[in-house]
């Protein structure tokens, strides 16, 4: 690739329709004869359902049907990853019925579905359904759950899903025994709610003429939903089930999973032989979309006299919620425990993760998924270590980084990093952020009565979750390859069918750049199609920053096949030997001559094979490729955050934020910058604003945007971004992935800055979110304590 498209900030093709209101989202779709579903959800955190009387609702004019768990006896919503406990036993995997069977386990659990001619009728009729609950004690706090007599699932003792470990405990204990110093930390990674702009929606459709089902849904991975729902829940073969995920307004992980409502509308459509639509209200999103994070962690690091890390030990409790969401078990283990080396050459690491059931909404991946939790604990711990050793926070990192010439680097927790240069990344971030002359700015702020602080974090991410054989051995119940189909049409325009899914990432542009560059076309000549199992051969979808690193390579492989076949056709047309044909800038040429055929001429010959090597070659110019990655890709970076705190109100304002990242090869720097900006905004949201709170009865207290605070433009500064890109060695395109890094690297930098700002008052710890109340309490609590001493 030598043209100008790669690395060019091509404007996003898809924005034209998004910005002019022409996007086509699930709720925009209406099928002929469509009925509407309203789902009655549990108001209790934990209760037995004694009786449901739906007779009055069923008799209401306009109501078509009312279904309860007794009516919908289907398969359990499956879990896609089986983690094994240290003793070898499989995780506890209790059933997850789409409609509750006799017991509700979280506020929002589906109890009954009312289907009517209009949504308003369904909702009004729902008021007439009498449900007699017998409330049970709710299990909310993970620490208490492990000792509680109340069980979320009767056959899961201690509410413990699994107890997992990785690493060498003996090596770690030996290192702690001879450590010069040990730094410790205890922290909570706060529970978050994704709150994608578009609430979830689903339409089930059933064709009586042939028995085919179609599900339109707000999904990041339609093929995965087809597999999970078809094979495990409703027993519909793939050939009879089409899943369409049209434009999707943000996912952030929350739309990866197979949800009950998808199964409910598809099943009901079959029962009623009518399309059935369900669209979540925002309130429903709060209590039915999978939540994220929610860890309680104790960690300690052993150091030698120079502050070099000898060993790391981490104990984590991870909240699973009431049921196992599709990928929940792998988040705190294989996307968290295996990342604990971070950017550091720590020789010995051991971690234990206990996954706990509680009477709360299921918890699963949310932007970063396990890696933000890991980075947060690690970077906070490194800050504590710096304080213990009286070292500059950048210096202790520098001393412990893996060196650029040590790649590939095998960590003690399974992963093998292929490439990176952490020293240069941090040096660049330090320069860009003005780290070295920060004290001047602190002094200046102090004159204005403000407490100014600076924080730094470095991160490593493992994305493009990889090789299928490896993840399979770790418990994944699916492969993690990607599929692409490239169709060169008779007149030379191209359609690319990708198994990844774009819900804001800009694939229609980035992938078009990749294809246009290889085939010598314009971006406009390439259309990218995603999100429909009837159009795309197969796919695993979009999450874990995998789309370019895995899906992009599948496209590149399909392009290789197109070009190889094109050379055969061109050789025939040009009466030359295939080995003499070169392809560049859209033209097949005979090496050393001016004889050439353009791609359009070759494709026309392929579809109109009048002069064609028909005895040796099939007509047509369309190729499919699957790519199974060799390794994860490992983007890394350094974030520096600067805050000013008003000591009178406790309000924290972010005044500077710098991110320097290594994304490997970048196709579209503008889109990458956008991804970084969005990720940082979400990370700042977690650090300063967002938290999901349940009361002791399992009631969701932060159940609306009044009580759950999302970041807004005025909470954010203009970000300074930079890159130091080291091409990925183990990725054929050299790319690494950028979708999650902002949310991974930023929270510890923000909290580090808050603690630094408050450090003159003796504050050494702060939980997320650092709300004005918490900060004010930290300021004044310390003052009072000092006065008392």
């Amino acid at each position, binding site marked *: 690739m030598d043209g100008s498209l790669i690395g060019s900030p091509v404007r996003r093709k898809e924005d034209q329709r998004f910005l002019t209101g022409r996007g086509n989202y699930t709720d925009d779709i209406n099928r002929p004869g469509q009925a509407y579903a309203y789902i009655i*959800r549990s*108001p209790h955190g934990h209760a037995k359902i004694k009786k449901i009387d739906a007779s009055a609702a069923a008799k209401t004019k306009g109501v078509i049907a009312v279904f309860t768990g007794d009516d919908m006896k289907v398969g359990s919503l499956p879990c896609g990853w089986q983690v094994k406990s240290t003793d070898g036993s499989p995780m506890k995997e209790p059933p997850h019925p789409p409609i509750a069977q006799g017991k509700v386990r979280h*506020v929002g659990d589906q109890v009954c579905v009312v289907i009517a001619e209009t949504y308003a009728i369904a909702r009004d009729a729902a008021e007439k359904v*009498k449900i007699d609950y017998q409330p049970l004690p709710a299990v909310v706090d993970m620490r208490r759950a492990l000792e509680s007599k109340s069980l979320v699932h009767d056959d899961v003792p201690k509410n413990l899903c699994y107890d997992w470990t990785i690493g060498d405990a003996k090596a770690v204990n030996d290192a702690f025994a001879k450590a010069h110093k040990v730094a410790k930390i205890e922290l909570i990674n706060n529970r978050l709610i994704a709150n994608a702009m578009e609430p979830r929606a689903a339409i089930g459709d059933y064709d009586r003429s042939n028995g085919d089902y179609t599900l339109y849904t707000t999904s990041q991975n339609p093929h995965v939903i087809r597999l999970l729902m078809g094979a495990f829940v409703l027993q519909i073969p793939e050939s009879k089930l089409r899943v369409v995920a049209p434009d999707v307004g943000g996912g952030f992980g929350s739309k990866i999973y197979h949800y009950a409502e998808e199964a409910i509308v598809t099943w009901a459509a079959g029962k009623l032989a009518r399309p059935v639509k369900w669209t979540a209200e925002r*309130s429903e999103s709060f209590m039915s979309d999978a939540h994220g994070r929610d860890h309680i962690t104790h960690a300690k690091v052993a150091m030698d006299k120079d502050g070099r890390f000898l060993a790391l030990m981490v104990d984590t409790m991870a909240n699973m919620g009431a049921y196992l969401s599709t990928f929940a078990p792998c988040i705190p283990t294989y996307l968290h425990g295996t990342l604990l080396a971070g950017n550091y050459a720590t020789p010995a690491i051991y971690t234990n993760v206990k996954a706990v059931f509680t009477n709360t909404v299921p918890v699963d991946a949310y932007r970063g998924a396990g890696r933000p939790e890991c980075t947060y604990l690690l970077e906070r711990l490194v800050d504590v270590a710096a304080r213990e050793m009286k070292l500059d926070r950048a210096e202790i990192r520098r001393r412990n980084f893996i060196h650029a010439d040590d790649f590939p680097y095998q960590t003690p927790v399974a992963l093998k990093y292929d490439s990176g240069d952490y020293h240069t990344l941090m040096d660049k971030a330090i320069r860009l952020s003005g780290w070295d002359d920060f004290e001047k700015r602190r002094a200046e702020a102090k004159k204005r009565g403000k407490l100014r602080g600076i924080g730094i974090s470095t991160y490593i991410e493992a994305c493009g979750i990889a090789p299928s054989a490896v993840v399979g051995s770790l418990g994944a119940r699916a492969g993690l390859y990607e599929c692409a189909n490239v169709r060169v049409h008779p007149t030379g325009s191209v359609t690319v069918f990708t198994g990844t899914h774009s819900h804001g990432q800009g694939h229609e542009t980035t992938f078009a750049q990749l294809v246009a560059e290889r085939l010598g076309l314009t971006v406009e000549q390439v259309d990218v199609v995603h999100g429909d199992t009837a159009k795309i051969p197969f796919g695993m979808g979009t999450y874990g920053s995998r789309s370019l690193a895995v899906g992009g390579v599948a496209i590149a492989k399909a392009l290789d096949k197109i070009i190889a076949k094109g050379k055969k056709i061109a050789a025939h047309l040009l009466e030359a030997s295939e080995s003499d044909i070169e392809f560049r800038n859209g033209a097949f040429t005979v090496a050393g001559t001016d004889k050439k055929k353009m791609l359009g001429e070759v494709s026309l010959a392929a579809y109109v094979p009048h002069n064609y090597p028909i005895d040796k070659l099939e007509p047509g110019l369309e190729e499919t490729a699957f790519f199974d990655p060799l390794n994860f890709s490992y983007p890394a970076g350094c974030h520096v955050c600067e805050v000013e705190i008003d000591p009178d109100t406790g309000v924290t304002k972010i005044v500077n934020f710098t991110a320097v990242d290594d994304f490997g090869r970048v196709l579209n720097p503008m889109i990458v910058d956008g991804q970084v900006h969005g990720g940082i905004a979400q990370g700042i949201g977690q650090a300063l604003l967002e938290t999901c709170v349940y009361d002791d*009865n399992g009631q*969701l*207290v932060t159940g609306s945007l*009044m009580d759950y605070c999302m970041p807004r433009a005025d909470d954010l500064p203009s970000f300074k971004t930079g890159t130091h890109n080291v091409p990925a060695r183990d990725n054929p395109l050299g790319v690494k992935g950028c979708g999650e890094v902002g949310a991974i690297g930023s929270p510890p930098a923000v909290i580090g800055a808050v603690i630094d700002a408050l450090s003159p008052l003796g504050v050494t710890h702060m939980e997320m979110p650092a709300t004005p109340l918490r900060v004010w309490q930290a300021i004044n609590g310390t003052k009072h304590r000092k006065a008392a001493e």
Partner: protein
Amino acid sequence: MELSGDVLIPAPRAVVWAALNDPDVLKGCIPGCQSIEKESDTAFTAKVKAKIGPVSATFGGRVALSEIDPPNSYVIAGEGQGGVAGFGKGSARVSLTDEDGGTRLTYAGEAQVGGKLAQIGSRLVQGTVTKLAGQFFAAFAKACAKS
């Protein structure tokens, strides 16, 4: 959520006690009360329309009296289902003592809400309950003074 308070009612203790056990008086005093039926001396069913913040619903529920010590005190417990709006439940000990100018009514108890009420109305519940209690006792004092 805890609630407690007291109010001076300008009527003798026996009158206040009788009113506390009279469904018709209670119906007239409970804000939004559509019906209250006596099932036995210690059990009632009630229908109350209430609005808490953005959530408005008709709650159907039961009220039970226990630890009855006439004319001094009882414990009143109730729970109401508001359909898809969620539920509310609570109990309170109500005590009467003689005082110059009438009877001092003291109440102390707790209340809990669930479902949509907790989700989007929870921080308005305390204020709303305090307001409703104020309305109730004002009306109740008036009713007792009349009889």
